[in-house]
């Protein structure tokens, strides 16, 4: 699990928390910067053990780029799926065919699984009920085939390949 | 003498209480000693302040350098410091007794809570700000609930829960009263409220008084809000009961006296009309009489010594409320004196009862039959305490009750005589049931005892008994303090000018 040493994780936390502090106290001033650095270093000291999988290597440009690409993709998926669900809700006959199906992922790390599950949950129409090892149990509001391979491709596939750019 | 240093009376218990968990890690015994020493310091300091104040007149202490009515201030008059001295004295004795009893695991926390309860009671009698009083009343009531529950029996939790529920409703009503007061007058300082309370519309004013009643009657064990008394006293350990009746109800009665008489100005001179018909003095007298009658009659039917003492304590509160309701200076002097006597004698009675219960192994008075033969000393001390409460001549309760009767006769309306007859009748009932306990104790019967009693317990009880006897023989010991205390209650002008500065009334 511990892919990076303590210092590296501490440094990651330090940078991220300091940046977040600057976002909290938006109109920039030097006093805020100093305070943010101190507070970030201090909190990161205690919480570094919770930054599994992260470290200095997380700041590699390819990973950040991956994250930046991923955000618009997930937003677009959310909007698309929301419109689909809106149509279902508004139609008087309520055309739903719910089912709980399984799908398999290739992601290894917990944090990757969490991001994937959250992405699935955020797109309406699909909802992660549980994860056992690498099997996702997904509740779908409208599904044609309950086949596992189909589900893996259609639901997980579209997020997974982008996610793998920045998490394992 | 710089009066701002009087804050140490409140700050030191708080600081020590915050440190108490650290002491608890070193050893449980240390926490008990620290508690005792803190009370001893407070007691000594309060006495020195009391001397100063009696000589030089009331003083104020300001907090944060903000002068009243803008900041919070302490009002150090003879009355407040006298009551604070009583409170710290009772706390000191009980914590000394507490050192003696066997160690339990929770003792470090218990001594912490005791420290905070007594400290908060001391703060209530000194503060000069309405909301600050509320905050400290909350500390007092939460701490008291913890103390009640600490015996870890079903009964004690029931008592604590009842107390919590009544306390919460009371504090909600108190907050409403604070809201109304602030909304109309725009201030929370007691002196400024006293100065301008007559400006409030009478309907609203009487409503504020009613709501305030709900808040403080819980602590003072007075009629509509005293349903918690029997359960809580029965559930709690007896030495905790000494704090309950000696400290908590003292603080509650002080709040009634100060806020009702000085601040709201409800006395014979200018009465507040409640919806145009009733006057509040009469209500207070009625409440006092009802509380006394209920207390004494229920005590008569009980077998459990803790419950008997609890109902008796409720009845004494009724007597004091009656004295406040009478409203002239003689009666009020008697009331304050009786508060003192009650605190000391009840603490004595509860501590002795604790020792007896520990010795006999039961709190039923039937099981105590023959205890006096076995341990004459304790039984005599119990008798001294009981005589003090009843008011046998040449014991302390006698003098205070004489003052109250004197005041009631001076008022001389048929309504007062009528009420007084009830109080006297109730006192007779009291004589009856106390003598029943004493008679049973000196009955001839073999008794087996279980536990040894620590010498510390004897020392604390003897100290209290000495105070009871001394005050009984020299009742004039405190007379100048008592007179200036009761005069301070009536002298609203002096109160206002002391707090707000001399030039205010120009």
């Amino acid at each position: 699990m511990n892919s990076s040493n303590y210092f590296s994780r501490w440094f990651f936390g330090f940078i991220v928390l300091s940046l977040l502090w600057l976002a909290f106290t938006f109109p920039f001033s030097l006093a805020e910067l100093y305070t943010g650095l101190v507070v970030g270093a201090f909190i990161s000291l205690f919480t570094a053990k919770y930054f599994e999988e992260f470290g200095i290597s997380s700041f590699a440009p390819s990973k950040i780029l991956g994250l930046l690409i991923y955000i618009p993709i997930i937003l677009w998926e959310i909007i698309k799926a929301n419109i689909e669900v809106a149509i279902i809700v508004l139609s008087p006959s309520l055309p739903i065919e719910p089912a709980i199906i399984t799908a398999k992922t290739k992601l290894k790390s917990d944090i990757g699984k969490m991001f994937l599950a959250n992405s699935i949950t955020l797109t309406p129409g699909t909802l992660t009920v549980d994860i056992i090892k690498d099997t996702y149990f997904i509740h779908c509001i409208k599904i044609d085939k309950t086949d596992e391979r189909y589900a893996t491709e259609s639901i997980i596939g579209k997020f997974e390949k982008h996610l793998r750019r920045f998490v394992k | 003498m710089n009066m701002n240093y009087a804050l140490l009376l409140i700050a030191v218990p708080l600081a020590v209480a915050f440190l108490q968990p650290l002491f608890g890690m070193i050893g449980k015994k240390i926490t008990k000693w620290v508690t005792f020493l803190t009370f001893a310091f407070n007691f000594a300091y309060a006495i020195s302040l009391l001397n100063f104040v009696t000589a030089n007149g009331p003083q104020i202490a300001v907090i944060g350098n903000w002068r009243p009515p803008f900041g919070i201030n302490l009002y150090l008059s003879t009355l407040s410091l006298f009551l604070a001295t009583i409170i710290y004295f009772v706390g000191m004795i009980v914590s000394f007794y507490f050192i003696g009893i066997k160690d339990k695991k929770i003792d470090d926390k218990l001594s912490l809570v005791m420290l905070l309860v007594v400290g908060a009671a001391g703060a209530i009698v000194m503060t000069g700000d309405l909301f600050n009083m509320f905050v400290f009343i909350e500390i007092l009531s939460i701490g008291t609930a913890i103390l009640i529950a600490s015996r870890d029996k079903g009964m004690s939790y029931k008592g604590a829960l009842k107390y919590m529920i009544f306390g919460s409703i009371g504090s909600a009503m108190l907050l409403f009263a604070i809201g109304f007061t602030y909304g109309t007058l725009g201030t929370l300082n007691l002196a400024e409220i006293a100065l301008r309370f007559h400006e409030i519309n009478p309907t609203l004013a009487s409503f504020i008084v009613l709501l305030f009643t709900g808040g403080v009657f819980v602590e003072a064990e007075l009629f509509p809000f005293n349903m918690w008394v029997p359960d809580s006293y029965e559930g709690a350990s007896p030495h905790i009961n000494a704090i309950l009746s000696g400290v908590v109800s003292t603080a509650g009665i002080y709040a009634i006296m100060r806020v009702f008489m000085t601040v709201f100005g409800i006395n014979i001179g200018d009465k507040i009309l409640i919806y145009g018909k009733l006057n509040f003095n009469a209500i207070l007298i009625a409440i006092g009489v009802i509380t006394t009658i209920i207390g004494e009659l229920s005590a008569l039917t009980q077998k459990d010594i803790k419950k008997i003492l609890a109902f008796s304590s409720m009845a004494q509160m009724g007597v004091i409320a009656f004295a406040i309701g009478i409203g002239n200076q003689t009666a009020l002097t008697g009331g304050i004196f009786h508060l003192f006597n009650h605190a000391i004698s009840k603490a004595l009675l509860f501590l002795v009862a604790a020792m007896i219960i520990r010795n006999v192994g039961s709190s039923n008075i039937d099981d105590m039959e023959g205890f006096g033969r076995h341990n004459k000393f304790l039984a005599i001390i119990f008798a001294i305490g009981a005589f003090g409460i009843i008011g046998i001549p040449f014991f302390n309760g006698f003098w205070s009750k004489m003052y109250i009767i004197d005041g009631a006769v001076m008022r001389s309306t048929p309504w007062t005589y009528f009420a007084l007859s009830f109080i006297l009748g109730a006192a007779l009932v009291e004589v009856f049931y106390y003598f029943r306990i004493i008679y049973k104790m000196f009955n001839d019967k073999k008794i087996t005892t279980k536990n040894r009693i620590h010498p510390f317990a004897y020392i604390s009880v003897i100290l209290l008994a000495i105070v009871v006897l001394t005050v009984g023989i020299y009742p004039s010991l405190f007379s100048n303090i008592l007179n200036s205390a009761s005069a301070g209650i009536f002298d609203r002008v002096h109160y206002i000018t002391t707090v707000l500065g001399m030039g205010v009334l120009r």
Partner: protein
Amino acid sequence: MFIIGIILITIGVIFSTLGALGLVRMPDLYNRLQTSTKATTLGAFSTIIGVGFLNPAWLIKTIVIATFILLTAPISSHNLARASHKWGIPLSDKTSVDKYDSKTGKEE
């Protein structure tokens, strides 16, 4: 900026209401979770970002708020779905397959 903001807020408000409508109309708990919480999440998200567009100085903070919503909302709704399934809330009659049910026994 102003127009974008107003459009975003309108979208957000409408999606919130659609989510609420879904909450009322859907036959069983899981479908309600599906439509309601997530639609509302998008609603809140775009409302917040829309406000950020109306006052550009607020944009960074609104993005922070919206990000936190996106991070927290799915966790709670996932946990709720799992809990209800373990607790035994039935699925609606329309459900065709329930592969989770057989597995849960093995896990314990």
